């Protein structure tokens, strides 16, 4: 792996920034160079949220990107707004639970993940929806090893949140799709 540029977008409260942070932690535990950069602005509750994570074997120049290798969209407007960023051959992850449209680009791999559905049915906790997506991303795009992600969980979910680690680990493995690889 030379460099992986990951862009994750959705609305506030979906755990978009957390997905990115966990990937960044895990990459650090794999001794990669990594940057995590959130969008920030005059934010409102439920407003848009996105972040860029770059993982590289080399020093990372700019923490911002105009194109990406992996795009994860948690809501409809993000798909519309950021779809163009994904390079040909890239991996697109769509939160199928609230995005009904199918993607028509033929030059990418599209993965539909029913984050909320899986979170409720398999895990019994709607709040793990973002972890379901994180799991799908790791499974399909192989961004980091699960062992490193476990260490990331242990670094991020501390204190009263430590009890969530086992449930979140379960969520990581809950997506069974293989993606829609049309290319």
């Amino acid at each position: 792996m030379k460099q992986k540029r990951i862009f994750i977008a959705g609305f506030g409260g979906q755990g978009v920034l957390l997905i990115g942070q966990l990937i960044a932690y895990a990459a650090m535990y794999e001794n990669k160079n990594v940057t995590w950069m959130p969008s920030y602005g005059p934010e409102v509750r439920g407003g848009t949220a996105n972040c860029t994570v770059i993982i590289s074997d080399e020093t990372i120049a700019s923490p911002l990107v105009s194109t990406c290798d992996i795009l994860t969209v948690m809501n409809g407007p993000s798909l519309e707004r950021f779809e163009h960023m994904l390079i040909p051959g890239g991996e697109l992850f769509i939160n199928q639970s609230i995005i009904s449209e199918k993607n028509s680009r033929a030059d990418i791999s599209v993965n539909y993940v029913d984050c909320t559905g899986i979170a409720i049915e398999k895990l019994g906790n709607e709040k793990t929806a973002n972890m379901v997506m994180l799991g799908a991303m790791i499974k399909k795009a192989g961004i980091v090893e699960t062992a490193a992600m476990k260490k990331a969980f242990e670094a991020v979910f501390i204190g009263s949140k430590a009890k969530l680690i086992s449930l979140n680990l379960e969520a990581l493995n809950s997506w069974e799709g293989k993606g829609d690889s049309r290319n």
Partner: protein
Amino acid sequence: MKEKKLMKGNEAFALAAIRSGCRFYFGYPITPQNEIPEYMSRELPKIGGSFIQAESELAAINMAYGAAASGGRVFISSSSPGIALMQESISILASVQLPVVILNVMRGGPGIGSIQPAQGDYNQVTRGGGNGDYHVIVYAPNSIQEAMDMIAKAYDVADEYRNPVMIAADGMLGQMMEPVDLPEDKGGIKAGDITKVKPWALTGHKDMRDRIAMNSVWLKQDQLEDYINSYWPKYEKAEQELAEYETRSLQAAEVVFVSFGSTSRITLEAMRLLEREGIKAGLIRPKTLWPFPFHAFDEISAKTKQIISVELSKGQMMQDVKLAVSGRWPVGLISRVGGMLLDPLEIVLKTKEILEVR
């Protein structure tokens, strides 16, 4: 083994200040540096330090005046318009020769401006901003790790030069996360040791020594001139000894970029893209903005045809670049302002335009 951690810029800056012995923080909220007062309010009380949320930026910097005068290690942080509000007292700190480390997480200006990253404070931070003959020593990091290292160094330089030292970061560095090696914890100065390391500090003379007065008012102008001339050699020394810079690929460079802070990272990416197209580009990255590393420009090769200042301001740094270049090469400008960022591709396109026109 070094302690490695993934940290958000602002929290890392605050941690670096504490580990450099900072025990006093006074601040007033402003985006994009709000994680700093949040961090300080949580961490300083745990180690016997003081955090005060001031009623204004002016109050904060004047509290810093008091704490520094009594020998404490102080950290001040704000963002562009907040720093502008502090300039009156930064001039006073320089006039009474007090060491204070000030972090400016720059955002778009002028006026209240925007809250996105910018470098339009170049003149504000390098040209004083306040009145009178003084300088502020200014470091410009381009990564979170470098910012932490520079903060640690800034405390020592501020003490050595008895002068305010500024770290000019920006919203991008403040908001992003990167893995960092945590600096060693130097611990705070014990109250009983202050007079040993800072004999000028106001610690109460208890009839044991002459009184020390810190005073920024001089009603006799000839005395003020003598006073300014008495401390001015330290700025000449700073110009000789403190300028820092990094160069990349200056040998055989057709075009040399000058770029600092987070913008220099985007410039590096643009250099890689240009290389693929057969255009050899080099970089001079000032790590100090004052003193500006003028002598770095003597390393530019005879093959170079064009210098380009790449900055998030309307050519404020380009003025220093032109001084450094002294007419030896043509100087161009690639910039975005107001909180808009440069894209590596945009730098590539504009570089080609400049080279074609030439």
